[in-house]
């Protein structure tokens, strides 16, 4: 079984994240770039299967040169190899282009199962996995809280706004997993040492048989404005009457 895990590099949610208000693009220099926590969980789902079964796990990421670090970490956690799609022409890609390029890389590599995070913490789109599945012409099951492997098929529980749905699909397929899926392992020293010898290939658009001409952006950002930061208001220390004072505050502001 060949599993491709999609890992995305995102600005660390622990820091302030900034958009360039001129271009509407992410200001990558303004924050630390890390592997999105949700994609570590996606990788963990693949690695847990690999712990018990014969499987090949490939970490795939599209992004600028800094993505190497994310892929090294994936290798250190236990992925067998890594693929980095990198091309200057991909700067500022929208959802449509990202999905098309990742799908081309997945097709070139070959796969039985693709595992992604349910949604990236930067864009919060949560659509790339489904878009990739459509390109690949295979079933998708997104937002899985649990994942169960069976020969030739995959099943899981998908939590939605109204409850849960048990679903299954035959392989090949694309799935995405939620925060509830698996707590990611930490890379240990042995893993880090081994990672140095594992293959990390870089593919350009040309390597994927794609060129830039067919990629008119399908969405365009027309304006970006920053909201003024919030400031602290009144702060009191409870000396036995804070509950009553809060009731006063709410009444004064017509909040009750």
């Amino acid at each position, binding site marked *: 079984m060949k599993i491709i895990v999609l890992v995305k590099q995102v600005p660390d949610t622990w*820091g302030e994240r900034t958009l360039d208000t001129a271009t509407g693009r992410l200001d990558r220099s303004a924050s630390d770039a890390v592997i999105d926590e949700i994609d570590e969980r996606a990788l963990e789902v693949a690695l847990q299967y690999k712990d018990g079964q014969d499987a090949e796990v490939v970490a795939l990421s599209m992004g600028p040169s800094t993505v190497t670090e994310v892929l090294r970490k994936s290798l250190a956690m236990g992925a067998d190899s890594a693929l980095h799609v990198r091309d200057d022409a991909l700067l500022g890609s929208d959802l449509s282009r990202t999905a098309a390029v990742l799908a081309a890389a997945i097709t070139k590599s070959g796969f039985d199962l693709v595992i992604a995070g349910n949604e990236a913490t930067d864009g919060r789109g949560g659509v790339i996995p489904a878009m990739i599945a459509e390109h690949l012409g295979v079933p998708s099951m997104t937002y899985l809280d649990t994942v169960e492997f069976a020969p030739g098929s995959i099943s899981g529980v998908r939590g939605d706004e109204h409850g849960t749905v048990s679903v299954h699909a035959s392989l090949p397929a694309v799935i995405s997993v939620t925060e509830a899926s698996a707590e990611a392992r930490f890379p240990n020293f042995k893993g880090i040492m081994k990672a140095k010898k594992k293959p990390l290939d870089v593919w350009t658009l040309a390597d994927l048989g794609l060129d830039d001409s067919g990629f008119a952006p399908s969405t365009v950002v027309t304006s970006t404005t920053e909201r003024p930061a919030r400031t602290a208001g009144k702060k009191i220390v409870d000396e036995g009457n804070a509950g009553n004072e809060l009731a006063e505050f709410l009444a004064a502001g017509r909040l009750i």
Partner: protein
Amino acid sequence: MSHALAFIETSASGEVRNTAAMLIAAASKLGTPVAVVVAAPGTGDALIAELGELGAAQVYVAETDQFGSVLVAPQLAALEAASAALQPSAIVLAHSIDGREIAGRLAVRLRTGLLVDVVDVRADGDVVVATHSVFGGAYTVEATVPGAGPAIVTVRQGAIDARAETASPTLTTQSITVDPASAAVIDEVHDAVVATDRPELRGATRVVSGGRGLGSQANFALVEQLADALGAAVGASRAAVDAGYVPQTSQVGQTGITVSPQLYVALGISGAIQHRAGMQTAKTIVAINKDADAPIFDIADFGIVGDVFTVVPQLIEALGKRE
């Protein structure tokens, strides 16, 4: 005026989900609103009155016996067929779990642009302009779909308050079947029992959230009591969710729900940046925390350094006296 399709989600038993009103309103801002819905054979007619009430000028029902047994593929086929028939300028869906999966696949299938998690839409001539709220509301971004195909838009649930005027819709019924081999299969549906008449977290005007500071699932009842006293929805931090005090569907923040209420009360929540990302656009923020240095106080309009187990009961009592 061109058509704008609103995709209507339904429950397993065919009831219209509550995002319908918002979506038909959004579609009506972009064109003549057409409600597209998938239903079991013979059940579509029953939806016309309700969707007309919400403002649909036309109801497009795709009937299939695969309703409820094949995941998202029938919905995708319905929108593809409606789009081919009506050549809409826009297709709006909820930014829900199903909505995203359908929208993503549809954008690829129709080779058109996709705008996700938008909080508002408007038409600028023929062009669909969508407003996004990015990084927890720190930025407002406008974007358009320049191509010829319909703009596919997913709308954040609860983000649009506007409602369309009631209409008397025409009905189109189409029967569809999809190849089940290329889709995921639904084995079982467990709709959660909605036990309370508490407001829904998404779109709520008042929210009371609890964090790890509540200490246990039993103690979390205090959050619910205050919510009920204020007529508020109940939210939680990820730590409270991870500790099992409340289900994941209550999580507010970066990887949970984004709320933008008139009043947000944070109880025993430190205010980590990922939590703030989901609530910092609230009009008024109140925080109660034992730790005077908790970051939640940096954004609170009224902060109380104190113990939730003494302050909140007193508050509930004071609220009771005011009634």
